[in-house]
């Protein structure tokens, strides 16, 4: 069989796909807690996520929210931390907790057959945690040690500094952890945070997987009588830094520098956000991007360079991030600015743009594979106050955006003088 390998097989342009976001089932528990559920998948597994409005934005002192969230698994009046961990792990289940800026979560992954066994204990954690002082002490000691290791890493140091420049040290997005903050934590104050934002707090539920037939009754039975009191959304003032260029020496023996270049950007509700996501993909958002092609694949300055729009609710930022050889850091920054200039001055050619569009549609299709991915996308929409219309609008914009629009956007947002610039060696 003779084939001409120079000729690519015919493809269907992904940009012509009619993608749809599978619908989720929505209902409320008797206390008004909204539930979003996607029932599907081949494996007998499920995920349940409790999303509380109890993130960093709600704390009155640094680390309060993250620590209260962490200690949810560390003791109730009925069970010790060990017994709680033993219980979930014995059933092959994973109970994780995460604290973000606005929200904080508990998430449970396990075999569907154990749902009815596991849920009452999650209820116990939400209703009856005791935040024991010795558990807090161990946590504080270990977190301080971990922080001392992280502070040796240039990428960690750069990550927190750039957030501070963008948002200010008093904003939850820009605030960072200092060792002495841990020493101010105490059980009473954590319990009072817990009481207000978890036991009585406002929450939502996201469930997915091959769910038991009676999962609605189960959720209502165990969580339908929780107080679910409305929580006011605080608004913190953003105070960006005035100085824009920073060079920091963190490790005298460092062989690489962590580079961060960033500017403020509106949140995802702003009409420029979705077009900018497409521009970002082309600029530095995937392996074939301009930044990657130039700075890694042509010059070999770095193992990887990426740009992205931060997923932040109140106000976002456009970030370029890389670790590069110490002697090529300045050259790397100049190349980043050069790529911005090219985007401002020259039209993207149709071929490159069509590649980006196909890539984006293909990865959207890939991302929607499986119940956990589908519920994850819904969660992001719901928490940002959007519906699936936002998803369809993204697709319309991917399909229709033009080189002229991208140049206009670049002229507005990719200007060197608007960016903070940081190297930490």
């Amino acid at each position, binding site marked *: *069989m*003779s*084939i001409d*390998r*120079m000729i690519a*097989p*015919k*493809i*269907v342009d*992904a940009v012509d*796909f009619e993608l749809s976001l599978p619908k989720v089932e929505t209902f409320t528990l008797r206390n008004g807690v909204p539930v979003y559920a996607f029932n599907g*998948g*081949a*494996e007998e*597994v499920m995920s349940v996520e409790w999303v509380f409005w109890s993130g960093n934005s709600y704390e009155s002192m640094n680390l309060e929210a993250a620590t209260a969230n962490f200690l949810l*698994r560390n003791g109730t009046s009925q069970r010790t*931390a*060990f017994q709680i*961990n*033993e219980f979930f*792990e*014995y*059933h*092959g*289940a994973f109970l994780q907790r995460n604290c973000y800026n606005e929200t904080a979560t508990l998430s449970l*992954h396990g*075999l569907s057959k154990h749902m009815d066994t596991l849920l009452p204990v999650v209820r116990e954690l939400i209703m009856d945690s005791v935040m024991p002082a010795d558990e807090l002490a*161990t946590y504080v*000691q*270990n977190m301080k*040690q*971990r922080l*001392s*290791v992280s*502070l*040796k*890493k240039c990428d960690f140091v750069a990550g927190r500094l750039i957030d501070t420049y963008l948002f200010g040290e008093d904003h939850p997005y820009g605030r960072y952890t200092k060792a002495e903050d841990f020493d101010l934590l105490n059980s009473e104050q954590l319990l009072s945070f817990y009481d207000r934002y978890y036991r009585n707090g406002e929450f939502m539920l996201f469930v997915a997987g091959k769910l038991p037939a009676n999962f609605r009754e189960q959720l209502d039975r165990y969580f339908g009588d929780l107080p679910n009191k409305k929580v006011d959304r605080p608004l913190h003032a953003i105070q960006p830094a005035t100085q824009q260029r920073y060079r920091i020496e963190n490790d005298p023996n460092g*062989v*690489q520098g962590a580079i961060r270049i960033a500017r403020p950007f509106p949140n995802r509700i702003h009409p420029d956000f979705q077009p900018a996501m497409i521009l970002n993909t082309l600029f530095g958002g*995937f*392996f*074939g991007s301009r930044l990657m092609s130039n700075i890694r694949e*042509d*010059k*070999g*300055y770095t*193992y990887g360079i990426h740009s992205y729009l931060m997923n932040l609710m109140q106000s976002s930022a456009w970030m370029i991030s890389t*670790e*590069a*050889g110490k002697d090529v850091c300045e050259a790397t920054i100049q190349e980043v600015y050069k790529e911005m200039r090219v985007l401002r001055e020259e039209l993207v050619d149709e071929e490159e743009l*069509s*590649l980006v569009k*196909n*890539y984006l*549609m*293909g990865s959207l*299709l*890939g991302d929607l*594979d*499986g119940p956990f991915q589908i519920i994850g996308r819904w969660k992001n929409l719901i928490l940002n106050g959007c519906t699936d219309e936002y998803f369809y609008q993204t697709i319309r914009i991917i399909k229709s955006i033009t080189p002229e629009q991208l140049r206009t956007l670049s002229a507005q947002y990719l200007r060197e003088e608007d960016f903070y610039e940081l190297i930490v060696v």
Partner: protein
Amino acid sequence: MISFERFELSNGLRVIVHPDFTTPNAVLNVMYDVGARDEDPDRTGFAHLFEHLMFGGSVNIPEYDEPLQRAGGENNAYTTNDLTNYYIQLPAVNLETAFWLESDRMLSLAFSEKSLEVQRKVVCEEFKEHYINKPYGDVWHKMRSLAFTKHPYRWMTIGKELKHIEEATLADVKAFFKKHYCPANAVLVVAGPVNSADVRQLTEKWFGDIPSGLKYNRQLPIEPEQTAARRLVVEADVPLDALYMCWHMPGRMEAGYQAVDMLTDILGSGASSRLHQSLVKEQKLFSNVECFHFGSTDRGLLTIEGKLVKGVTLEAAEQAIQKEIDKILQEGINEAELQKAKNKTESMIAFEDMSLMNRATSLAHYELLGDANMMNTEFARYAAVTTDQLMEQAVNIFRTENMNVMQYRAKTAGV
């Protein structure tokens, strides 16, 4: 139950088809039977550097990534000590693009000087980012060369030193390709909404005329049985003392592997594991402690590692670990602990198998190990393990003469 069909082309390429009509995506996975263990001791890091060069264009296709992105696909690759894996996910309607790309680079690469020059630099930056410019980044370089004296597991996939990567030549690259990258040494898995007949036809079309190549005859130096404990003390500019202990353990296909896997789980994986509960929570000697292994094909290392709470001596920390080991050896493991490990394994497998990509990669890996159907029989081997078998492994592994200890001391007084 994961359904699949298996066939072999006349050039020796092993092919697995895993149909799944619930997804619009397809995966094409090519696993090559070559890893860092197959490298020349003076040219370490080469298998991984070579993986980078696989993206520098092939004989008929100047750009690998671009046509794939145009078809809505994504790809990546990784190298381990045992194997090298390349995977593509793309919309199933464009599956043939993946066949075209993967077959052409199995046929031959472009072998460009420019690509080699750039990727040498990229890999050197990767080396620095992960193994030099990071506290504790050199731990596994040091531990591997302590625990292995002959077997090529004594170096990491990134390589022993930057120099080996900097010195790689195009002639080395060509020789490596000829030796390892051919149908006789590869497994192809196609997964997604596909039927076996179509895949067979596409495979014949794109891979059928690639010369078979010589089947690689792996003859690695055998690691001699360790006869005395080995110790290494390292001082470095890190904030905390850390302790690493390793023991030689059975290879992936040896009897006892599943028992050891669960033994590591019971000892040190998860917040309810023995080591965490005793050493972090009760005695407060470590700020973290884990027990794990690498899933190596050849005889590998069971590892216990942790960072010490400030003020605790490395000697006291090691004694405390030894005490936990002795406790197992003297008092045994109870049925509930074993059952917990089995339950966790069952659940882990179910979660892993959710993803089409994971299923494709697992099928390829099991086929490389000898039989893709282990995908469906592996859990039964875990379920059948008894506490006696766990103890037999524990007794055999945790012998003093089988032990390697590295004390990683913080040079400075602290932060």
